[in-house]
């Protein structure tokens, strides 16, 4: 082939080669553009522009450079590149909401971001420098950013015991215990006051088959206008969830339960003479009601009261609501229960009162005739006496539905590992969750919410029953669940965990018996253990005068007549009252208060006058405290302080209230020693005779 011809033919080829080479070089040259146009670089530049519009540009740009920023904490295995875009998080001047994200500063928190990194609390992917990768659930990282609403869950990873900064988490943890979640699911719950659901070994004595049928079918049916669930006889009682049972199952279960009478009922006979004397009297129920109120049953139990057309629940929520209790229980059982709740089941939290037969008869008549609802069981079908087949089937259901997980019953052991293990549910990745056909975003938070609100939404065959919870309680539960994570694998993390300190105050001896019998800890705190309804008694020995304690125990209602929640009338005997008083004085002492002060000599009328002047003019204590008929409602009524409190306590209190009762409202002030003396002297003059007591405090005693 002639060379010229070939040259001519290849000219086109050469041209094509030239063009493709140019494009080739150009494309290779622009390939780093992908890097150059990385979104984080735009945020970097935007921050520089933004900082230039601020008055403190110099400080804002002090650490600025064009590369990737990262927080690197090797011992925590933290490599967070969040600050590449969130460049202003440590700049106090960028805190307010007008600063555009991602430049806004982090609100001030106890843990500084640079010491802890971001992902430790917020989750998400710290390594990422792309918006979606860092924040959302992507394939590359299964843990999306925790919505701020649930961020307290991250506090709970290390802080195993409750801290005041995380109310939502604390509430959620309390609910996990109260709702018996931990009875079916394995999880770490810190020690709290927990009262197991009633033992059902003797339920046959207590309630009828019809009532059990109704209760199992719909433990709660109505939602009132506030979204509170009203139950069949119980209000605000979310503990018993609703199981999805059909009529046959309900019949079987109610047959099984109504035949549970393992032990004979305790003493339920009332002196026949009293019955004979009161039986015919028309006002026996009215007298019962009066007695019911006098004993302050409503401190623990709520009863619906209709006043001026409005029905309202009056009373506490420590015990069950009693509005329809008469339709539930048998009278014999009721009498036996009131006499000795612990004889029905040992851990019953109702105190054992010293009832007289007469009171007992009146109150039980009141309960059985007035606290009833004739419509309650109207939709329950007629049932024949239980057959052995029904009982047998009911027994199987009792285990199969998980009833035995919460309710003790003789002869049946709770199945182990009934529900899924939730001890690390907060670390679950999206791929570990089965969403079924649920039309919800595929994130752990949405899964938990959907599952709690409707257990069958993600799994139609779920065994979990239906709870009816308020929205904020669902959020609290989610927070508590999210806080249960696999322990972060960095060894440094293990050291950071603040373990829950189990506290249980269990005194021995005679006082211990009374403490158990009257369940003091349900309302009062003792050395950090107990309820918060009533004043903390940890230092009661230093605070109150002995005679006052005795008189209060004997007749509690006279001291705070205006409060709804009042210590019930326990009818203590003299011996019991003195045991309690002696114990309080001996043991419940504060190291801050000198038990045997000698300051009586320092009292003089001038000092008292000075104290009165300080009280009324300089410090204006009357804004919070009442003396006589005037003053504020915040602090306790001081009218009878002279016979109530010990002078040494008052002096120590004025010096530093928080040292005696942590978290008390009264601020610590800078009184001089002389002022303290004067104020103490004045306050100790305040005494009144019991009959003249009138005004009370609203805010709960000495807090």
């Amino acid at each position, binding site marked *: *082939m002639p060379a010229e011809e070939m040259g001519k033919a290849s000219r086109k080829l050469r041209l094509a080669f030239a063009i493709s080479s140019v494009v080739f070089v150009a494309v290779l040259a622009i390939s*780093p553009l*992908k*890097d150059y146009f990385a979104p984080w670089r735009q945020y970097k530049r935007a921050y520089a522009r933004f900082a230039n519009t601020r008055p403190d540009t110099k400080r804002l740009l002090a650490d600025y450079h064009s590369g*990737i920023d990262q927080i690197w904490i090797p011992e925590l295995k933290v490599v967070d*590149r969040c600050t590449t875009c969130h460049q202003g998080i440590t700049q106090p001047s960028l805190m307010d909401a007008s600063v555009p994200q991602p430049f806004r500063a982090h609100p001030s928190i106890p843990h500084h971001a640079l010491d802890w990194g971001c992902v430790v609390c917020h989750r998400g992917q710290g*390594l990422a420098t*792309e918006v979606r*990768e860092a924040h959302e659930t992507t394939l*590359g990282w299964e843990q999306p950013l925790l919505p701020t609403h649930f961020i307290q869950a991250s506090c709970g990873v290390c802080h195993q015991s409750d801290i005041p900064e995380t109310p939502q988490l604390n509430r959620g943890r309390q609910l996990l215990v109260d709702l018996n979640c931990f009875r079916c699911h394995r999880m770490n719950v810190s020690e709290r006051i927990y009262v197991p659901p009633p033992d059902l070994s003797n339920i046959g004595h207590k309630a009828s088959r019809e009532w059990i049928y109704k209760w199992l079918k719909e433990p709660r049916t109505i939602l009132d206008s506030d979204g509170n669930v009203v139950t069949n006889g119980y209000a605000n009682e979310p503990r018993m969830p609703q199981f999805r049972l059909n009529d046959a199952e309900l019949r079987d279960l109610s047959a099984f339960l109504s035949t549970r009478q393992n032990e004979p009922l305790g003493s339920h006979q009332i002196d026949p003479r009293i019955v004979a004397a009161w039986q015919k009297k028309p006002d026996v129920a009215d007298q019962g009601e009066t007695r019911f109120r006098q004993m302050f049953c409503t401190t623990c139990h709520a009863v619906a009261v209709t006043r001026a057309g409005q029905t309202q629940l009056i009373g506490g929520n420590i015990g069950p609501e009693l509005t329809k209790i008469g339709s539930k229980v048998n009278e014999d059982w009721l009498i036996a229960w009131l006499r000795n709740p612990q004889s029905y089941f040992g851990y019953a939290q109702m105190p054992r009162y010293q009832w007289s037969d007469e009171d007992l008869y009146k109150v039980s008549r009141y309960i059985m005739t007035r606290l009833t609802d004739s419509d309650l069981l109207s939709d329950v079908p007629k049932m024949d006496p239980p057959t052995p087949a029904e009982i047998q089937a009911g027994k199987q259901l009792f285990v199969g539905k998980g009833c035995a997980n919460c309710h003790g019953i003789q002869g049946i052991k709770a199945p182990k590992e009934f529900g899924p293990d939730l001890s690390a549910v907060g670390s679950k990745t999206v791929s570990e969750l089965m969403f079924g056909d649920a039309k919800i975003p595929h994130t752990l938070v949405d899964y938990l919410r959907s599952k709690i609100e409707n257990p069958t939404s993600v799994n139609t065959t779920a065994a979990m029953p239906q709870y009816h919870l308020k929205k904020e309680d669902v959020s609290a539960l989610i927070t508590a669940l999210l806080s249960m994570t696999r322990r972060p694998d960095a060894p440094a993390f293990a050291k950071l965990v603040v373990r829950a300190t189990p506290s249980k105050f269990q005194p021995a001896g005679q006082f211990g018996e009374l403490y158990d019998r009257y369940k003091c800890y349900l309302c009062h705190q003792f050395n950090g253990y107990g309820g918060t309804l009533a004043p903390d008694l940890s230092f009661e020995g230093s605070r109150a005068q002995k005679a006052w304690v005795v008189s209060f125990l004997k007749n509690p209602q006279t001291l705070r007549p205006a409060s709804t929640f009042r210590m019930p009338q326990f009818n203590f005997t003299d011996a019991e009252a003195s045991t309690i008083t002696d114990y309080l004085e001996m043991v419940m002492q504060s190291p801050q208060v000198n038990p045997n002060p000698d300051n009586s000599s320092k009292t003089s009328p001038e000092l008292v006058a000075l104290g009165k002047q300080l009280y009324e003019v300089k410090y204006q204590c009357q804004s919070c405290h009442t003396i006589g008929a005037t003053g504020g409602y915040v602090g306790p009524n001081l009218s009878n302080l002279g016979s109530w409190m010990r002078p040494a306590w008052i002096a120590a209190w004025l010096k530093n209230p928080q040292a005696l009762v942590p978290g008390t409202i009264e601020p610590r002030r800078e009184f001089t020693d002389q002022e303290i003396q004067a104020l103490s002297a004045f306050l100790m003059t305040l005494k009144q005779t019991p009959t003249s007591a009138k005004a009370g405090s609203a805010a709960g005693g000495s807090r």
Partner: protein
Amino acid sequence: MTSWENTIERLRRTPVWQSLFRRGPARTNRTRSVAVFGNIFLHLLPVKVRDASLRVRATYYLGSITFFLFVILTVTGVLLMLYYHPAVPEAYQDMKDLRFVVSSGVFLRNLHRLAAQAMVVFVFWHMFHVFYRGGYKPPRQFNWVVGVGLLLLTLFLSYTGYLLPWDQLAFWAITVGTNIISYVPILGQPMRFLLLGGHGIGENALLRFYVLHIVILPLFAIILIAVHFWRVQKDGGITLREEHGRKEKD
């Protein structure tokens, strides 16, 4: 003669140029032949090809594309090796670093992954094309077998590379794949053990796959590619449509 060509000519006379290329410009067929003969890479090609085989429809350049993908994979693969540790926690961390921190790291990994997938596609396509052209028929039987070997090597290269990111995708794809091996009677379990360096996919498997992926398999692939090219030339060039079957004009 333009000044441009003059400059080139002067450049050609420099000792450096002459030490590099030794020959003058390839302007005649003889010097062009010498250029092909004398170059270690080009001598795998024939000096002359039939006009018909230069048509796009003769090959669609499928073989060349496959080879060029291999070249791209080699280049990007070597660059990726600079950032990669074949160890269990680090491997995945390195993927994250490539994605988020390394300059153009995403681009390199994308290109490598893309080329790897494309190479599997093109090697199959090339094989089917050669088959329909009758390229397996004498005298090219052996080169067909070499090609089948290259197909298997490509699959293994792609497969061994699949594990290296050490993500869920990698782990489970390799699990499924190696389970198939264990179905081989008698030899299955020992073979799987040999491949994985243990009974499960762990640190050893990652190291073995890494060595296979970057040393052993590419070495064999390069040798077989050379043989493949050489045999194309020795067996009479590429198979043309009219060579087999009916001599229809296309």
